[in-house]
């Protein structure tokens, strides 16, 4: 339905996009005892570290190979070796995940070759799991870095079962996209467990970045899916992949282990969750628990109550493809019009979005288009705050980074309950905006303008 265009500007203004190495690093953070390592100059890591610290309000494990100018030109073998050994000695990780950056990709460091050599020369790390992903900054976006990293973890760490008989139909693999929060993962875990199934999440940010206080502190990730658990994912009955970005990883899993997968492009909204419930009923052989029947009723009621406020809204969304698909989809189903959709990278979901045009661009594009099309609701990450305040339209924060509000890590979207609460939050924001800025006055109808909510009426 939608045409996808790429911004023609030479200069990106107010970026929506973040880089792929830190998307990859975040995926590694969903592994237990992990230390993500960016192969680049130290700023590559420190910018990502600050971004995640401010988003999750947690200490973030992330290291750097600290490439200097000279090392960059000569090649980074020694830096990678030293970094691996230092991390091994100081933090005793269960796994080190290495992502390349623009600097080291421009030179063309052969990191896989380095790792082989490091293992040969240093017995201590000969068997330490080390996964390398190529993620140059000058290509693709955050979501792509996540996708590539999860795929690579599946390819290198999951073991193929020796025989089909070893398969356990109650075990379920879940491959969540990076648009899901730790809160979403916890909700999904509960739902799947309520069907008597045992899910393994890869990556599992709910175990590491949900803010819990761990029993013992380590400088690596404080939870997440373990190396052993990952290796056994090949014995699961099914893989559930969430978001189109996870297709590659799910296919890699199927190819390597034969575990079939079901891809849910969306898990926010009524139909999406009906599909999930039907699927879980089918594979578990159990009917949907009463709890979810009640929750479905609550969601339907919330949709009825919320459509008064959301219906007719002119929506501008800036988000990575899968999040854009979820949120644009939900609000469109509630009667909003998705007039402006700006995203960061290519994806098959884009042309299926319920809108005319999707632009791969930045927040300047989002702001200008929202203004041109009279939008009266903006959804994007925290960096949209300046645009929304200039346009004087209600602003709903979703996605990474969310540094100027609390609870980004627990914002819930999946499940009947997630959609229900999200509808309430959107409706409440719009009601407050109406009370604060758009109450009718005796004069407001006379000039035929009325108390419009749109960007240009101010």
């Amino acid at each position, binding site marked *: 339905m939608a045409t996808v265009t790429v911004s023609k500007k030479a200069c990106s203004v107010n970026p929506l996009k973040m*880089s792929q190495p830190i998307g990859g690093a975040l995926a590694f953070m969903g592994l237990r005892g992990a230390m993500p390592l960016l192969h680049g100059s130290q700023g590559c890591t420190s910018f990502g570290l600050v*971004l995640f610290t401010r988003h999750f309000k947690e200490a973030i494990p992330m290291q750097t190979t600290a490439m*200097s*100018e000279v090392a960059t030109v000569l090649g980074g073998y020694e830096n990678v070796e030293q970094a691996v050994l*230092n991390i091994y000695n100081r933090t005793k990780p269960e796994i080190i995940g290495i992502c390349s950056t*623009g600097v080291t990709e421009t030179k063309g460091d052969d990191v896989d070759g380095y790792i082989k050599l490091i293992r040969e020369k240093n017995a201590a790390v000969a068997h330490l799991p080390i996964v390398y992903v190529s993620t140059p900054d000058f290509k693709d976006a955050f979501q792509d870095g996540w996708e590539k990293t999860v795929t690579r973890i599946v390819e290198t760490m999951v073991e193929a079962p020796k025989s089909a008989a070893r398969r356990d139909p109650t075990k379920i693999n879940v491959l969540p996209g990076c648009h899901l929060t730790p809160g979403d993962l916890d909700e999904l875990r509960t739902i799947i467990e309520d069907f008597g199934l045992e899910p393994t999440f890869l990556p599992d940010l709910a175990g590491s970045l949900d803010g819990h206080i761990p*029993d013992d502190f380590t400088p690596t990730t404080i939870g997440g899916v373990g190396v052993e658990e990952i290796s056994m994912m090949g014995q699961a009955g099914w893989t559930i992949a969430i978001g189109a970005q996870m297709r590659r990883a799910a296919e890699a899993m199927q190819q390597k282990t034969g575990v079939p997968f079901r891809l849910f492009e969306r898990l926010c909204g009524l139909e999406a969750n009906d599909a999930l419930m039907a699927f879980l009923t089918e594979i578990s052989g159990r009917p949907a628990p009463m709890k979810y029947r009640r929750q479905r009723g609550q969601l339907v009621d919330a949709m009825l109550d919320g459509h008064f406020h959301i219906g007719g809204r002119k929506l501008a969304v800036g988000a990575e493809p899968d999040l854009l698909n979820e949120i644009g989809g939900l609000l469109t189903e509630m009667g909003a019009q998705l007039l402006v959709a700006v995203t960061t990278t290519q994806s098959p979901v884009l042309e299926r979005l319920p809108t005319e045009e999707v632009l791969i661009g930045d927040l300047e594009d989002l702001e200008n288009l929202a203004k041109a099309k009279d939008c009266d609701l903006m959804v994007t990450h925290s960096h949209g705050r300046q645009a929304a305040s200039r346009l004087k339209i209600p602003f709903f924060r979703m996605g990474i980074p969310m*540094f100027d509000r609390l609870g980004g890590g627990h914002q819930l979207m999946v499940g009947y309950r997630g959609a229900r609460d999200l509808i309430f939050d959107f409706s409440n924001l719009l009601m407050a905006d109406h009370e604060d800025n758009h109450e009718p006055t005796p004069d407001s109808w006379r000039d035929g303008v009325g108390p419009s909510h749109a960007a240009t009426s101010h």
Partner: protein
Amino acid sequence: MSSLSATIQDVFNEPGCGKNANKSEAERKKGCTKQLQPGGAAGGCAFDGAKIALQPLTDVAHLVHGPIACEGNSWDNRGAKSSGSNLWRTGFTTDINETDVVFGGEKRLFKSIREIIEKYDPPAIFVYQTCVPAMIGDDIDAVCKAAREKFNKPVIPINSPGFVGPKNLGNKLAGEALLQHVIGTEEPEYTTPYDLNIIGEYNLSGELWQVKPLLDELGIRIMACISGDGKYKEVASSHRAKAAMMVCSKAMINVARKMEERYGIPFFEGSFYGIEDSSDSLREIARMLIERGAPAELMDRTEALIAREEAKAWAAIAKYKPRFEGKKVLLITGGVKSWSVVAALQEAGLELVGTSVKKSTKEDKERIKELMGQDAHMIEDMTPREMYKMLKDARADIMLSGGRSQFIALKASMPWLDINQERHHAYMGYVGMVKLVEEIDKALYNPVWAQVRKPAPWEKSGDNWQSRAMAQAEAEAAALAADPVKAEEVRRAKKICNCKSVELGVIEDAILANNLSTVEGVRDATNASGGCGACAVRIEEILEQMVSASHAIAAE
């Protein structure tokens, strides 16, 4: 790159820096930058440092030439405040792609500059070089020059790609760019005998505005603040100021010193953190301006203002004395480099623990500052368990430190207050110190601590992680006490120099083996204190102890 490496050598050779001037020729060449350790490094790159130093210039378009990581992952994340334009908070980047990497990014950069001028028409554009375009040989100096000629507008190259070094080097390279391309290029509309530059102040949380009214009252004009709430034209014409104050340690000492050299603007290093420091700085500003021709009565007015503000601040702080009685603060900071923060906390009746703090000579102050700096460095490597034990052992009620230790301290259920860069409150000037004391009070007496320390209903008493941590720590201590060999091992394994990762045992062995008696000797033998140099005081202590121990043995 040759001109960039020349600039780097030049900023390393900084006679205004006491630490640097004490080094040998060869040491100086190596520079003051900490050796970066792969897998053990923290902190930003030179590009980050340059951007931090210049981005608070509010009406300038800051254009980052590089892949999306450099700007996309970090834009609009600084707490500086502007009284006017918000252009500085707009993220501009060339976001170079694979094609640019292959064919060069200069064309995209030039087009980007044109787009910015057409859409935003700023008084100037700063173009920041990053690693990837530096590697592929994009000549930003040439592009900026071409753009300057074509659009008749200052387009300033900031040559500080991330991989040339750490953040503090970037601060200085940013200063060099200002000296080379900006300062002295325009003339002010008028001058007064009261024109002051403030250098190295970023107006975080708007804290400069806690001091500015006092300067306004005295008739002192901030001609240019480099760079907090600064404007391009002010910086460009700042060479006509009468005097300068350099804030924020040594980040921009090259700017202050070279402006003195080139334009005869004397400067002093001062601080507005703390009551005494604020007063000292105001006095020094007045003295310098008078020396440069301002009427002498400025000093009388300054003294009167100081007396009034001090009285007000001390009175406000005195109110907290009864509430702070017996309360102990663990102060760990290398950030807010002000002795008089300590003085203010003591004046409010707080006891400082963890660092031996007593008022005495200037050298002692320096020494304590360095010790605090070293501990701040160390704390990043600390586990929450160790931190909890430290708080417990020190019997501290609250910890004041930099942002990095925040989440660990809070997870230890310890009141904590941020006194470094990322803080949300402004602590500058007289009102700032009162604010700090207020915030400590708020943190200390918040009932939330009692709540969060309560055990969960399924926890047996004494079975939470805190008590387990303490029990574990005690068990380890007991095991060590019973095993002198192991205890000696642990003692010797204590890291003295964090930059070069040198342990106490290595230093002791070197001293004994080579009969060393100086820090330099230890440095040559072990590399310890060959990095940031903050551990030199510790090495002195070790030397003293070993010398007195060997004397004792000799006397026997």
